[in-house]
């Protein structure tokens, strides 16, 4: 038997909620290099374990056989910045297809020091439970007393119950939205970290799993070359501190996104009805420069494992009627989803609403599209005051909070809205549907105006994971791609998206944060090599990522995804009427973009399947046989 490479804890924790059993399954070292962890491992588990009998179809998101994989990776828990990694892989209710969505905090650290690389959950509990992990003690405990609590209060209650505090206990849980199976419910943990995509919180709710609580374990993690790990970490840190593209992220996290994206026309304002910040009442963009945004609050760093970024912060509201409230400093997506997308520039109100979304466990991105859409529909008379029960105007944070409670508890019209933007819009139909922002697969985009970021719209629509799969360019020249392309030339954009493919799935398999991995791929490979003892190259990393994406694509096809779903909704793919990207019409180039992308990635445009030669080139001969039968 091969010796276990460094960086791995060596066990997968299998939890069967139906039978109420938990067991540690040794992870065969032979497959560690092929799967790594995170989405690499999760994609393979979904493909292998969620097929219906006979292998032709796939179980739906709400079936007990659906897997909820909470994975980390070989870098998690090591002294590389931002390595508390959690990657959630499951069949999610948004697209009823696979998901890969990331959060951080101390989940990965605590889990690895307890001796596990991932938790694989299946079945469905009879009564609500939470999973407690403390080294070799793994228990499903009664969670009835936690029901109805929001995610922050759940963590507080579990601190009380266990007598632990802070990072001694990492808790990822669902709030009311997850309990009530809101289709865009998220899994929130460690005060402000959210795995938000494709309704993974609803999967947890369906399984009646309220929380996962992991004590900081006492076991050792061995690295093949520990000094090498620290040296690679130092190189990455130096790059993040000094590289022009990463430095603002190092200093202010994603806060600079608001002003920067507004300059590109990529800040979504009032449900894509405008791209001018001046159209938001009381908006003064100078108050949204990152330093001013941060200084508007009392704040303190609240970092993830081993992280030196000045990114995550806890903040206290300094003035107004919410003075003294502790909030998690919103990410850019929070400022956008709870602010600009719904027409609010009230920084205190937005920060508060963002934390309320986290506490309810609602994905703040889809929240922005949903709330903004309801506001627009009310303004235009498509949703009446009687239907909603009250009047909701642009920028009304208090009203938005009331809507949030209705949605997360499925009260009144909230029951329809809890089905997510696409399904709610289809139910209302008519002109209301025309103003809804969604992807035909059933998910919604991240909190940007992608009409000025074509590469991400294409990536989001063609993705198998309900959110961007290729990700934004990071040091693109390192992998032979141009430094930049014409953002409004569909063909160039499509080639770019195809060329960049692979990196993100690799990163998401390491247990590292998406932001601290915004460095050269070479450094990431160096850290991985030092941890494991392998000689992992950039080429292998890209190949790994593309292989993972191909496996997710195969699962998505089995779930019933087709090429016809790879389109933006009417509003999402519309043409901006003002602002920096005014008149740039992506829809006019969409077919050509799809054609180009398919040809470049080596997938069949008609069926969506990766060509046999593409799969064989990635070493996936077995998958070629599964997808193409004898033709392969």
């Amino acid at each position, binding site marked *: 038997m091969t010796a276990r490479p460094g960086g791995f804890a060596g066990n997968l924790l299998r939890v069967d909620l139906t039978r109420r059993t938990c067991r540690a399954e040794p992870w065969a070292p032979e497959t560690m290099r092929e799967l790594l962890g995170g989405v690499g491992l999760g994609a393979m588990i979904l493909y292998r374990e969620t097929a219906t009998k006979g292998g032709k179809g796939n179980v739906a998101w709400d079936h007990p056989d659906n897997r909820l994989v909470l994975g980390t990776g070989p870098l998690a828990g090591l002294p590389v910045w931002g390595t508390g990694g959690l990657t959630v892989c499951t069949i999610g209710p948004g697209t009823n297809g696979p998901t890969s969505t990331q959060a951080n905090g101390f989940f990965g650290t605590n889990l690895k*020091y307890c001796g596990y690389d991932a938790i694989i959950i299946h079945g469905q509990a009879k009564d609500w439970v939470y999973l407690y992990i403390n080294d070799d003690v793994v228990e499903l405990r009664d969670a009835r007393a936690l029901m109805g609590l929001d995610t922050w209060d759940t963590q507080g209650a579990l601190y009380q119950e266990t007598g632990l505090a802070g990072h001694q206990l990492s808790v990822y849980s669902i709030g009311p939205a997850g309990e009530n199976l809101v289709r865009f419910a998220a899994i929130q943990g460690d005060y402000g970290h959210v795995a938000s995509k494709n309704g993974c919180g609803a999967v947890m709710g369906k399984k009646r799993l309220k929380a996962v609580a992991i004590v900081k374990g006492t076991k*050792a993690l061995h690295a093949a070359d520990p000094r090498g790990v620290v040296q690679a970490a130092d190189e990455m840190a130096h790059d993040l501190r000094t590289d022009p593209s990463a430095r603002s992220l190092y200093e202010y996290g994603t806060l600079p996104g608001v002003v920067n994206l507004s300059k590109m026309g990529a800040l979504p304002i009032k449900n894509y009805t405008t791209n001018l910040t001046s159209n938001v009442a009381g908006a003064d963009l100078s108050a949204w420069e990152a330093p001013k945004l941060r200084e508007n609050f009392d704040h303190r760093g609240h970092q993830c494992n*081993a992280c030196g970024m000045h990114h995550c912060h806890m903040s206290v509201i300094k003035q107004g009627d919410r003075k003294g409230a502790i909030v998690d400093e919103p990410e850019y997506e929070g400022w956008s989803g709870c602010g600009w997308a719904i027409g609010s520039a009230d920084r205190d109100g937005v920060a508060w609403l963002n934390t309320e979304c986290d506490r309810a466990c609602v994905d703040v991105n889809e929240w922005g599209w949903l709330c903004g859409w309801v506001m627009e529909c009310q303004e235009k008379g498509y949703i009446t005051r009687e239907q909603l029960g009250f009047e909701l105007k642009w920028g009304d944070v208090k009203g938005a909070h009331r809507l949030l409670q209705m949605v997360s508890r499925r009260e009144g019209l909230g029951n329809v809205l809890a089905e997510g933007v696409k399904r709610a819009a289809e139910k209302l139909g008519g002109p209301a549907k025309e103003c809804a922002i969604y992807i035909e697969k059933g998910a919604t985009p991240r909190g940007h105006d992608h009409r000025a970021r074509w590469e991400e719209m294409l990536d989001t629509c063609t993705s198998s994971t309900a959110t961007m799969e290729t990700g934004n360019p990071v040091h693109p020249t390192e992998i032979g791609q141009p430094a930049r392309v014409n953002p409004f030339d569909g063909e160039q954009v499509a080639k770019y998206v195809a060329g960049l493919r692979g990196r993100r799935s690799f990163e998401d398999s390491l247990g590292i944060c998406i932001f601290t991995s915004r460095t050269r791929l070479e450094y990431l490979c160096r850290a991985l090599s030092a941890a494991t003892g392998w000689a992992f190259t950039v080429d292998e990393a890209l190949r790994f990522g593309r292989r993972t994406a191909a496996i997710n694509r195969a699962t998505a096809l089995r779930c019933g995804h087709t090429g016809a779903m790879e389109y933006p909704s009417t509003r999402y793919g519309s043409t901006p009427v003002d602002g920096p990207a005014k008149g740039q019409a992506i829809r006019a180039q969409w077919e050509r973009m799809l054609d180009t992308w398919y040809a470049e990635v080596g997938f069949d445009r008609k069926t969506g399947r990766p060509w046999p030669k593409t799969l064989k080139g990635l070493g996936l001969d077995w998958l070629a046989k599964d997808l193409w039968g004898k033709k392969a």
Partner: protein
Amino acid sequence: MSVLRIHPEKCTGCLRCELACSYMQTGDFQPAKSVIRVSPFEGHTSYAPYTCTQCAEGWCMTACPVGAITINAVGAKDVLDDRCVGCKLCTIACPYGTMFYDPATRKAFKCNLCGGAPACAEACPTAAITYEDVTTGDWLGDFARERTERVLAGVR
């Protein structure tokens, strides 16, 4: 002499010091074996590391019945493994809870300032832990005095 100074307001709770320390202690990464620990304060909103302050009058030394705690070349109290009998008296004597006992080796262990290059200070990304030259070994007393004055000023 040089001491480890803690600047609690700079700590973001990333726990990188614990990883670095445990590597020095064991050769692996294992925060449970670290002799610097990060504690949460004010709920979950702030953190601060604590470790041996290398007290001028080391109660651990006084309590040890076999003379297993000595002062090393850089002025740190250090446990001599071959003398320690694992009686844990030092862990009871230490007022700060920074003497530890390892059931695997049946020995006490503590911060020895890594022989003059503390790994925690090196690893801390926000300089919340620094290794500094000081005129008096009782930096903790100065720190406590300064902080008390600040807090009392706020109360008044």
